[in-house]
């Protein structure tokens, strides 16, 4: 860990301006960042602490649920409006990490948690994401936890967070505040970039841009939704595969459906082909089976994670069964 100085701005604008300095880094709960610093995966000379910013509220803005980026994972998970409007997001948070970490970790920080790829997290290894151009040893190595969807020849790391999976399914957007004082919103799915040949550039965030809030639209399929997570132990483990499923049925016909997967893609993975299979069709076990099969369209399994193909299909099927039961 390198020496750094720390700044605790009280306005978002001051934070954004300070964060635009090269070698600056925002810190929210610090639960991911501290690990990366301690293991010399990442370094910062200026730490901009977001703690004092007024970005912790969770509120309803007409049809939009607004989750302040600094609300803790625990606060978001337990909030009644979150439970009503996007229950799958509450479930995903409660299935993430541990109570201690959820008390510290924030909504915004969780969206930007970095991959758990073991090669990335140890500077003793080569890794394109950490050191562009150094190579990707995971592709021929220990890739059991890594992605079958969205990878490239440069990187197959998964985005490991649970929370963004139901949010991507719910068509959530993030609100950003730039160093130039401008705000903009971006579709959450589009916040994440696919690795391509620049796996070190993970998001479309500009230097200094602060995530101020997550905006979730209201929809029947967001309210009738669930999150199913499969992991190696029954608590305190990242997803091997997870699925957020939301549905709106009318007389047995699928009016709207939202599906996204975690633990299998290089970003929270919207399952468009599965959704298209279901939309407008009469729901039946056979239809669910077809939709599940389409979840792995384009999948590229690797030596140690091929099981994720079956696992993802089964998880989609189970999530759909659960949400339509």
């Amino acid at each position, binding site marked *: *860990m390198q020496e750094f100085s720390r700044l605790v701005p009280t306005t978002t604008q001051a934070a954004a301006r300070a964060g635009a300095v090269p070698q600056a880094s925002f810190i929210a709960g610090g639960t991911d960042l501290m690990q990366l610093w301690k293991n010399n995966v990442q370094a910062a000379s200026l730490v901009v602490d977001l703690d004092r910013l007024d970005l912790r509220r969770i509120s309803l803005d007409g049809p939009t649920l607004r989750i302040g980026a600094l609300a803790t994972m625990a606060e978001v998970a337990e909030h009644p409006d979150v439970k009503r409007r996007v229950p799958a997001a509450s479930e995903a948070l409660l299935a993430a990490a541990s109570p201690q970490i959820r008390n510290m970790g924030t909504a915004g920080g969780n969206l930007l948690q970095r991959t758990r790829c073991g090669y990335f997290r140890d500077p003793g290894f080569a890794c394109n994401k950490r050191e562009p151009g150094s190579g990707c*040893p995971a592709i021929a190595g*220990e890739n059991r936890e890594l992605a079958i969807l969205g990878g490239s020849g440069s990187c197959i790391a998964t985005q490991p967070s649970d929370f963004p999976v139901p949010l991507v399914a719910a068509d959530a957007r993030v609100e950003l505040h730039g160093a130039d004082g401008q705000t903009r919103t971006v579709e959450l799915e589009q916040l994440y970039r696919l690795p391509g040949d620049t796996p070190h550039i993970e998001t479309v965030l500009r230097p200094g841009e602060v995530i101020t809030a997550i905006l979730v639209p209201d929809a029947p399929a967001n309210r009738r939704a669930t999150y199913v997570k*499969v992991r190696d*132990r029954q608590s305190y*483990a990242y997803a091997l595969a997870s699925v957020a499923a939301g549905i709106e049925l009318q007389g047995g016909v699928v009016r709207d459906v939202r599906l996204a997967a975690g633990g299998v893609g290089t970003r929270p993975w919207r399952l468009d082909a599965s959704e298209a299979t279901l939309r407008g069709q009469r729901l039946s076990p056979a239809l669910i089976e077809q939709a599940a099969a389409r979840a792995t369209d384009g999948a590229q399994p690797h030596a140690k994670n091929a*099981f994720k193909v079956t*696992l993802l299909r*089964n998880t989609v099927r*189970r999530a759909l069964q659960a949400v339509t039961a």
Partner: protein
Amino acid sequence: MYIGQGIVRQDGRLKVTGGARYAAEFDVPGCLHAVLVQSTIPAGAITGYDTAQAERMPGVVAIITHQNAGALNQHKAAQQTVTHPFLQDGRIVYNGQHVAVAVADTFERAEAAASAVRVRYAPSEAVTVMDESALSRAYKPKQFQNGEKSPDVSRGDEDAAFAGAPVRVEATYETPVEHHNPMEPHATIAMWRGDTVAVWTSTQGISGVQETLASAFGLPKESVTVVCPYVGGGFGCKGNTWPPATIAALAARHVGRPVKLVVTRPQMFTSNGYRPKTIQKIRLGAGRDGRLLSIRHDGFSQMSDPMLGEFSEPVGVVTQMAYSCRNVAVTHRVVPVNQGLPTYMRAPGESSGMFALESAMDEMAHALRMDPLAFRLANYAERDEQKDKPFASKGLRECYSRAADRFGWRQRNPTPGSMRDGRILVGWGMATSTYPTNRRPCHARIVVRSDGTVLVQSGVQDLGTGTYTIMAQCAADRLGVDIARVSAQLGDSRFPQGPVSGGSATAASVLPAIEAAADALLARLAALAALDPHFAQVPPADIRLDGFDLTAPGRRVPVLQVMARAGLHTVDAEGSSAPGDAYKAHSCHSFGAQFAEIRIDPDFGTIRVSRIVSCFEVGRLLNARTGRSQLLGGIVFGIGMALQEETLVDRATGRIVNSNIADYHVPVNADVPDIEVMTVDAPDLATGALGAKGAGELPMVGVAPAIANAVFHATGRRVRKLPIRVEDVLA
């Protein structure tokens, strides 16, 4: 009698209030911090270091490499299997080997400097993983079980018996590299005063640390003081004295100030051993009547470059005594690869070996269409057929029947996949466990002080198992005094010497020594009393301790009064003990029967342990509370071995990929089901007057095979490789 009761831990309150001080927490004024630098290649030679940048960083006092460390003697203390202290030459034999140490005024600055040290290498070819193709490198271990046993053992003619057996089972089993990961990392504070050194270190053996440092620095033993009052978990990785302790002392000498070296969590994967990967080939022959005709068990165990020492996972040692069988052959081989030196990890050999043997027994029972428990009973060993000695005690039959009854084993439908709960597949499996009863020479002292308190001291360690408490229980019983007066002290090389805490031997070693010390103390008090006018004319042999009074017919004087009259503030006595003839004449083991129920979601492949029932025979249970907690903890450890623990090694570089405890899994509360433990309370008198056998390792031995056998029962799939994962059972 305090022995046997569930006396509350003497150290419990201190631990939960933060009052117990662990090695890294001692406050040594002027202490500097050291952080290890480790290699990033698996094999080759160091051609140079760039330390200039690190040396210029704030607070940095020294960067020590093999070029300026100074020569040490080899690590060659008794029972030592770690022979290389590092920082002595430029040879690299594994990825993560210590190559330098940075010393600075704070931990963070030392860490920053350590990461700024650049090492230049000339890499060479490496073999980083033991797989079938690496087995051609295998050789016979030279120091099998510390040189006490032969790696190859046989009786009868296994080849012929197997060839002629009507029913045969032959399979290869694999267990992975596992790391102990105790909560407390290795930590040492070293402080020199002239030619003497004091170290506060986290160890399972203070005597070993003392001998190792004395040997490394060419000092008489008395010049090395080792203090370790608490150990935050060891599980075997603190049994040897590993290089970081030596390097801390070396660094302190180098900079002329006290130095603290705490191994970081990632470095815990490359600094203090691990359970080596094993490949085990087993074949069993049986008659249609269910009698075993032959057993063959060939074990291959991953090893480091022999320069670092030797350790071989003794997987086949249990195989020699587990069942009655005329024709048995067992071999052990080690396979050197570019990895660190492996070491003992909770039930080394027994847990990994029994996973293989008890899985094979299950396969054979299935092949014979016999109930797995009935098959084991049909081959019950009444004596140790390899050593040709009677067991000192063996309550296994009772363990089987009590655990089976409690579990409801009779209701088991033997057909795999037949026991369902809706979509969930249910599996029932069982296995035998056994562990040798180890006992080693030990010394103890008891001191009576003028304030009415009694101290019992021995240079043993408490790994969190309850040693403090049973020491006090034992002394109070033998002296016949109230336990409230008695407190135990341990973990200090200035106390009478005790053995390493390993092989579940501490209780069986230290309690007889305490009894001897108590007897000596009683004699001394009696002799003292005889000089007292109250006891004029009474021979010392007639004087007894009763409560805290010395008595003889018609006379009674408080101990403290006798001491005061003699002008003594303390009276003390020492005692010692060693394994006796009864121990040597018998085969001494503890035993258990373990039954597991698992539930598998076939869509996800997730395996959930829903019930474990175990019955153990551990001799006399010394403390109902701490003993039970050992048994439960061992079972949880076994669940981890069965389903979670695995160190992943990158084949290309030999570097460990999951060197942190977020990605290296052990069970969390949610993984731990209802666990029922029962004990057959049967004092084993061959192990000493109290008849205690070890309880720390036994309870994990049968867990992994019981779970693996349950997985087969649930799915019809035989998984011969640990840990059993989602992908192994996914439909």
